[in-house]
């Protein structure tokens, strides 16, 4: 995925929808239905954009929805690309780069995760305030890619990629709707297998609240590009390493669905704040 391909894809979208979005969204597990609530003005699939790769993951649709929500222009990517599908950093972050090229100054991203912190419950929303990267994505790639990643890491180091004002807004919106949400840390592994009991114990010891297989590369790239980020995680199951239960993709998707109303309320509150006239 070269910069030229990103430019061309953005041109292709602009030629049909010449609007600057106020927000970009990557709708992972738990927020997929938001795409249907957008007043859609243009829909494109990843495959229609030269150089873009499609999602092979269950529950991910792989389409780009341009339109308005609560009167605010935005672009939502329904479905995403994961490391466990065999894709590299450049492919995984294609969507973020496209949103940035289209002019979106901020990114909302969602995922489903496994709860590590025993205080979490199935269906809770974690507003991600920090992350731990255990994806080892630097293990391969060209020098140019390595340079880009170093920049991404550097921008993560300087300040948190997660916008503190947006975290506060999200927590306030959840509280207002009496939804269960808290701020915390997300730890990313490649997957695709779920964790062993011993791995859960290790990840708890490392201090992470939830574990998942996505989001960190996109957030790193968004930070490199200077975008504001809000990341929401739908807690599917909370594993107890001493009393393990078998998990499957179906279970994770089903359990994370109960977090959907919370997520929708938070995203709408954020979009609403963007639509409000500047004070």
């Amino acid at each position: 995925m070269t910069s030229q391909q990103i430019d061309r894809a953005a041109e292709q979208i602009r030629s049909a929808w010449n609007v600057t979005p106020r927000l970009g969204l990557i709708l992972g597990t738990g927020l997929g239905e938001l795409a249907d609530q957008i007043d859609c003005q243009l829909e494109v699939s990843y495959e229609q954009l030269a150089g873009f790769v499609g999602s092979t993951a269950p529950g991910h649709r792989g389409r780009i929805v341009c339109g308005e929500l609560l009167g605010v222009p935005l672009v939502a990517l329904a479905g995403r690309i994961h490391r466990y599908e065999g894709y590299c950093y450049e492919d995984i972050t294609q969507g973020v780069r496209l949103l940035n090229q289209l002019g979106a100054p901020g990114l909302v991203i969602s995922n489903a995760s496994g709860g590590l912190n025993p205080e979490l419950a199935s269906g809770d929303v974690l507003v991600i305030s920090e992350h731990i990267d255990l994806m080892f994505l630097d293990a391969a790639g060209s020098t140019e890619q390595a340079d880009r990643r170093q920049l991404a890491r550097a921008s993560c180091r300087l300040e948190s990629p997660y916008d503190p004002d947006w975290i506060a807004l999200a927590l306030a919106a959840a509280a207002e709707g009496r939804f269960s949400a808290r701020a915390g840390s997300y730890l990313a592994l490649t997957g695709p297998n779920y964790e062993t009991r011993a791995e859960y114990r290790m990840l708890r010891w490392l201090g992470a609240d939830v574990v998942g297989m996505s989001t960190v590369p996109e957030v790193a790239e968004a930070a490199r590009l200077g975008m504001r980020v809000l990341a929401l995680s739908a807690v599917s199951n909370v594993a107890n390493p001493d009393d393990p239960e078998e998990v499957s993709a179906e279970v994770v998707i089903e359990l994370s669905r109960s977090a959907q109303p919370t997520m929708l309320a938070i995203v709408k509150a954020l979009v609403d704040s963007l639509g409000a006239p500047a004070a």
Partner: protein
Amino acid sequence: MLELHDQIAEAVAAIRTEWPETPHAGIILGTGLGSLVDEMEVAVSLDYEQIPHFASSTALSHAGRLICGSLAGLPVVAMEGRAHMYEGYPLKQVTLPVRVMKGLGAGLLVVSNACGGLNPAYKSGDIMVIDDQINLMGDNPLIGINDDRLGPRFPDMCEPYDRALVDRALAVAADNGLVAHKGVYVAVCGPNLETRAEYRFLQRIGADVVGMSTVPEVIVAVHSGMRTVGFSIVTDMCLPDELQPTSAEEIVQVANEAEPRLRTLVMGVLAEERPT
């Protein structure tokens, strides 16, 4: 991962031409543990070069042969030597033999390795029945587009090692008056041995032993729906505050000395697999 299906079929076909039986179990013999095949009634011995898509092992004390025959009265295939990530092989290739074992009809994987002891209650030469594992290799053999014919996209890992087999192995040890621990194996890619700081880290994350293999093979066994039992031979103790220098020769020697006890455990576990 879509290329694997055909690779497995080709390897299975090549083995079946030489040995038409259906193995009950596949066995992977780690560093210094190859002489378990002395107990086998060997029907066919195939060099890895003769089997399509098998990686030839460049590692120490790894012969690089697939032995087909019977052990404890059961048809088995045993790998004398394995490929490792540190040799530069992609994990898909490292783990292909497990998929081939499954393709031949084996429902059970018996895996062994030489490892470093982190738990201070262990000592050099001890055997640990693997209860659970931690993947710190920075890679995963299931990365890629999933082939649903081979297994699920997101395998559950809450019991990678069959609990009944763990209990059985420990019972065999007790019956024979052998010391066997039950613990957690952490895999790193290597090939350098760990620093003292790394040993402290690995102890704190909950590992009892550390090695450079086994975890990818067991992930693939779970993906394939095989039951697994695993044995680690502690070939040197890695206590960060009293670290002694070790050598590859020493590791092989300790493994060789422990091998007869491993043999007892494997034979005992397999004996109860026999149809009654």
